[in-house]
């Protein structure tokens, strides 16, 4: 006998939310603490250092600005995917998910170009505390982007079969993946000025 996971679509009466949504918000709360610890460490290292370089002097601001646009655009495309699925338009829902995935690829390619230039200038995580925090924070953020891309690839590919049998559950999956993706965008919104501009 197959056990059905409860409250994947209908809200649970006591929480008012379907289980996946509460789950993703609890997960995001833990993510706030994960990145919060890194931001906290950055404050300590930066304010304790006698000398701290300005990010704009040694990092590529135009590339990072472009990446900011790419990530913001991907946040829009994922909500457009969700909105189209709620309208019952699977075709456009899937297309917008594809665009989101492409934006994720674009972000990582730009990030790889940036890292490559840094490596060619002998600027590694061990070079100094600035680069240690730069690589740690952008690296962890990049891993989150890759994680999101894997889920989007699943939702566009094999996971899309669910639309035919359980369209509501599929739509909810896109919604909570979107919530995660927006959080990744939100982290970048703070990383960009803190590391690159200030």
């Amino acid at each position, binding site marked *: 006998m197959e056990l059905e996971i409860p409250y994947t*679509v*209908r*809200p649970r009466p006591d*929480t*008012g*939310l*379907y289980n996946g*949504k*509460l789950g993703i*918000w*609890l997960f995001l*709360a833990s993510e*706030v*603490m994960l990145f*919060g*610890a890194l*931001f*906290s*460490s950055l*404050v*300590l290292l930066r*304010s*304790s250092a006698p000398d701290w370089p300005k990010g*704009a002097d040694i990092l590529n*601001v135009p590339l990072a*600005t472009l990446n*900011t*646009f790419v990530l*913001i*655009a991907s*946040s*829009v495309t*994922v*909500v*457009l995917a969700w*909105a189209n699925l*709620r*309208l*019952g*338009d*699977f*075709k456009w829902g899937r297309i917008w998910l594809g665009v989101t995935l492409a934006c994720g690829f674009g972000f990582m390619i730009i990030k790889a170009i940036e890292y490559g230039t840094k490596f060619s200038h002998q600027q590694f995580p061990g070079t100094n505390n600035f680069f240690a925090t730069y690589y740690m924070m952008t690296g962890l953020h990049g891993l989150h982007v890759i994680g999101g891309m894997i889920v989007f690839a699943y939702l566009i590919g094999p996971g899309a079969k669910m*639309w*035919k049998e359980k*369209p*509501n559950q599929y*739509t909810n999956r896109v919604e909570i993946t*979107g*919530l995660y993706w*927006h*959080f990744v*965008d*939100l982290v970048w*919104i*703070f990383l*960009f*000025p*803190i590391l690159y*501009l*200030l």
Partner: protein
Amino acid sequence: MSDHAASHEALEHHDEDHSGHNSPEAIHAEKRKYLIIFFVLAVLTVVTVAVSRMHLPHAMAIGVGLLIATVKASLVAAFFMHLITERKLVFTVLAITVVFFAVLLWGPWHHVYEAEEHSKKVGAISTETPQQPAAQPAHH
């Protein structure tokens, strides 16, 4: 089940979940709102970069940069993560998170403040110390 039939089921169900927020008109209005938010976020990104090139005093530059980032993050959370229409439990989870996050940031800030206060005191003493031998030759 055809895509069309599935679409009706999806729409019907979501109507049950969030009454009033899922009529086709409301969803089309939402899509327009998302595009406006995207435009605002793009403009704010340009403003952030422009402000960073104005060579403001260090503390002010950090303040303005973080303020713009907070506005952008709030827009993403409120509209893209649709917090403005979210259930109370989500806000409870977030409120607890904010408290712990504040403690996490307060720790190093407090440490840095204490260290600065300490260095000021030490600095005040060390600037006085070299003067003492110069003022004391009369005792020898």
